[in-house]
């Protein structure tokens, strides 16, 4: 391959844009040809220049972008899980209070039942007493008459 052909391939070689076959050709040539080797290093040197001249963008660009695209305190993407969590917590709290109130009403029910049962038994006792008295009276009357 001629030096002019190799020179036209040098940049593509540096940028890994050549086929494997051409890579070997160029590699072999620049090993053997000083002139092409020099051109190779000159071409490679251009990349160094670009890197050396590379500047960081001004900080105010990022500052302006941050100002324009400020994230809200509670960003929208968090709203759904937050809402779900709130609903779950409210349901749990509601269930807890509801359970408590059910228990309370059952207590009341039980208390009422016991109270009523007691009263009924007292009445029954009194009734029994009364009945006993009546039976006793009957025998007394009966014995008097006989």
């Amino acid at each position, binding site marked *: 391959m001629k030096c002019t052909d190799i020179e036209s391939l040098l940049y593509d070689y540096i940028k890994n844009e050549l086929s494997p076959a051409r890579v070997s050709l160029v590699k072999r040539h620049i090993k053997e040809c000083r002139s092409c080797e020099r051109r190779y290093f000159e*071409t490679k040197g251009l990349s160094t220049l670009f890197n050396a001249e590379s500047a960081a963008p001004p900080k105010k660009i990022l500052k302006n972008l941050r100002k324009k695209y400020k994230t809200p305190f509670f960003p929208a993407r968090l709203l759904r899980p937050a809402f779900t969590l709130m609903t779950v917590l409210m349901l749990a709290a509601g269930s807890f209070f509801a359970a408590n109130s059910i228990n309370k009403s059952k207590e009341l029910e039980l208390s009422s039942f016991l109270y009523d049962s007691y009263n009924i038994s007292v009445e029954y006792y009194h009734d029994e007493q009364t009945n006993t008295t009546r039976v006793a009276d009957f025998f007394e009357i009966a014995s008097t008459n006989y």
Partner: protein
Amino acid sequence: MEKRLEVIYKENSRYVFNIALGMLKNRDDAEDITQNVFIKLFDSINSFRGDANIKTYLYRMTINRCIDLIRQRKMQDNKMDRIAQKNSVPADSGFILWDLLDKLDINHRAPLLLSEVGGFSYKEISKILEIKEGTVKSRVNRAINRLKDLIDKED
């Protein structure tokens, strides 16, 4: 700012800025272009499917806006404006690279900057500039050779 946007900015801003700087040879213009392309990108970020598409869009927009600005400036008849622009070299540049790039045809400058500054392959550059890969290859090589000649003349 959302973390995703910050990441995109931090990964690409240096390349975008330096490509704009290489195209325009003017720091203020490069700064404006950089900010504007990121705003345009972030406003439509949800319409992109992947990072590769984002990069293609970002750099294509950078090059196109630079070319538009260059053409706009060329149309200005006011000689004083032209002189002012010619003198507005990057403040922190100690070398003439940007001056030399200015002497390249803009169609050759763009693929060269995408290759050297952006680190894109010829295939990626062809997608960004919407030209054939073979065209990218020939333009980049012409740009490099012209640049070498200009540097040799400077020496």
